[in-house]
């Protein structure tokens, strides 16, 4: 009975105010992302490293003070180096702006980078980059100097990779799982990891109820 109640709660219609944001799924590109309105879809070219122009697909919504953009760049050359792709993408995104944050990121089992960039005009972008299945995935929420960054955060955090695969080898991807099973921290707490401040924190991937 409890499960039925929970299921009903989960499936209950969202409040009307949430209807503006919807999840848009693109299975042929192995991702889904939420936009505040139906995105415009365009094909364009992307200037990759070494001056190469490659095809790209852009999904975007522009609203007052904000632009939400998802770019998929075709970089299927087997010789492509992930780090080189991401480094170039970071530089391109940043332009003349200042990179405030550039940290490793993971969505599902796809690893990449997350950025926060402040433009010279005071604009702000929150973005993430992933090289996966021969494509560069670039999600970016940009706001004007007077805009609200809350919606950009909402957008950038909505990316989901739906392919079920990883851009890491099984060994590398499994290191986290092994840590949960057999890697207690100094305090002897299974599933904990040492954070940068030296304290132990439970790695959420080790929670049994984590999705």
């Amino acid at each position, binding site marked *: 009975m409890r499960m039925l109640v929970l299921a009903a709660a989960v499936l*209950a*219609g*969202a*409040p009307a105010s949430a209807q503006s944001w919807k*999840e848009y799924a693109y299975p042929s590109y192995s991702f889904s992302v939420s936009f505040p309105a139906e995105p415009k879809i365009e094909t364009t070219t992307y200037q990759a490293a070494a001056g190469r122009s490659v095809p790209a697909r852009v999904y975007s919504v522009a609203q007052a003070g904000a632009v939400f953009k998802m770019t998929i760049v075709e970089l299927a050359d087997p010789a492509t180096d992930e780090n080189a792709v991401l480094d170039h993408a970071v530089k391109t995104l940043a332009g003349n702006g200042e990179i*405030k944050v550039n940290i490793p*990121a993971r969505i599902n089992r796809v690893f990449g980078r997350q950025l926060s960039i402040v433009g010279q005009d005071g604009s702000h972008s929150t973005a993430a980059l992933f090289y996966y299945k021969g494509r560069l995935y670039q999600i970016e929420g940009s706001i004007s100097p007077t805009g609200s960054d809350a919606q950009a955060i*909402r957008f950038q955090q909505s990316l989901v990779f739906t392919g079920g695969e990883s851009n890491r080898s099984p060994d590398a991807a499994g290191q986290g799982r092994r840590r949960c099973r057999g890697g207690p921290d100094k305090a002897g707490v299974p599933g904990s990891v040492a954070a940068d401040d030296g304290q132990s*924190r439970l*790695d959420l991937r080790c929670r049994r109820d984590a999705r």
Partner: protein
Amino acid sequence: MKLKALGFAGLAVALSAIPASAHHSFAMFDTTATTTLDGTVKEFQWTNPHSWLFLAVADADGQPVQWAIELGGPGGLARQGFAPTTLTPGMNVKVAIHPLKDGTHGGQFMGLTFADGTQLGNQNGRGGARRGGDTP
């Protein structure tokens, strides 16, 4: 300004600390810091993979600034006592978060206290403030 940075033990906030699940890493949040936002609900989005709470919080000049607070998915939230209409526009709440490292107006949800003192979430410390790590 109603924005306060408080230690975990100093505030009677339900540390339901609903995680953003394994959907993505938590490296963008400063898990060493806890910030309490005292504001008014603008919108509560009951969505997958994360639900979102948009909160209007007064800045130093008394002007409302919108904050985006990331919660877990509806399944996990329902287990914690949330429902799609738990939070409605206009409600005054205090929300504890791990703030974003870049200083923008967002954070990872930790706990919630309603104006009448009611708290949401797990009281026994599961999913407490000290969660997640900086590693993806």
